[in-house]
């Protein structure tokens, strides 16, 4: 099964239409989409508007390939489950998002080989065909990096001034705000 998701907020007609056309051309009957507020109604794929988180997770787990926008929620969820994910970044000039930050996200994660990127909808069929030839990827840990967890723990344990001195990522103490007392 191939699972298509537009994320939690905005509609994304361009993605749904591209996958719908692909499903039609490949005669696939195993594509399922979460449309959100997209206005398009696909011909060749089954769909629902919203999914409860538990159902979302279950369908992600059952899917062989995920197709999504280049949002961090979709990308991280796919990586946590070790799924191949093909992303189409939302573009500001189509009014799909406020700025082109998803292009940068797609580029960065694509360059690391963690995701497959279709920069435009015409690249999507080829990327999807390719994704289906790949098996599941290694799933990643569900926790943040040890470094980030350590940064937060050090802050909680000792207060920000000493965190700064210890890890060396903060400027000298003059840059730190005075602590308030309760």
């Amino acid at each position, binding site marked *: 099964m191939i699972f298509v998701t537009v994320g939690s907020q905005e509609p994304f007609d361009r993605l749904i239409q591209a996958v719908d056309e692909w499903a039609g051309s490949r005669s696939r009957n195993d594509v399922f989409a979460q449309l959100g507020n997209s206005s398009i109604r696909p011909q060749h794929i089954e769909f629902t508007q919203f999914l*409860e988180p538990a159902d979302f997770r279950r369908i992600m787990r059952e899917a062989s390939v995920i197709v999504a926008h280049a949002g961090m929620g*979709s990308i*991280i969820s796919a990586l946590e489950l070790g799924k191949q994910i093909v992303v189409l970044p939302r573009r500001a000039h189509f009014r799909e998002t406020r700025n082109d930050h998803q292009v940068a*996200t797609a580029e960065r994660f694509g360059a690391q080989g963690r995701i497959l990127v279709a920069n435009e909808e015409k690249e999507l069929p080829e990327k999807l065909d390719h994704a289906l030839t790949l098996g599941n990827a290694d799933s990643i840990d569900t926790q943040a990096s040890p470094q*980030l967890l350590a*940064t937060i723990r050090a*802050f*909680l344990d000792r207060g*920000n001034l000493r965190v700064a001195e210890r890890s060396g990522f903060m*400027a000298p103490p003059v840059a730190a705000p005075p602590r308030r007392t309760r």
Partner: protein
Amino acid sequence: MPVKNAPSRGKVLGVASSGGHWVQLQRVVPAFEGFEIVYVTVLESYRSQVPENRFYCVNDATRWNKLGLIQMALRLAWIVAKERPSVVISTGAAPGYFALVLGRWFGARTIWIDSMANIEEISLSGARSGRHADLWLTQWPHLAKPEGPHYGGSVL
């Protein structure tokens, strides 16, 4: 009333908008072992993911919806005043900004972790949260500055 193994280190208010913000918050929660964690987000459906925790929903609003922002800020003020967290952490966006401002007011220590999605520049809410954050982080080393935001690892 107090139960065995009750968290003793204090209370954390974890605040995140939907989607990637929420997913990234979940990934840093292990750093708060021993704390009681109370969540604030914008989708009621996320409640089932954290059944053990107290959970609040606020309306979602962006910078173009002033009335929505005011409503969100008032609701967060009520939540912060009621919960009195010792730490407030947010991965964005607008609700996190208000939570940090209000949390500081009530004496909490505050953490902002800018979303990993902000690769080219820090988010607007992240930039504005800087002076209200005791720990102000970007997840990209190239966006770190001596005066902050700082880099201290990423959620991946």
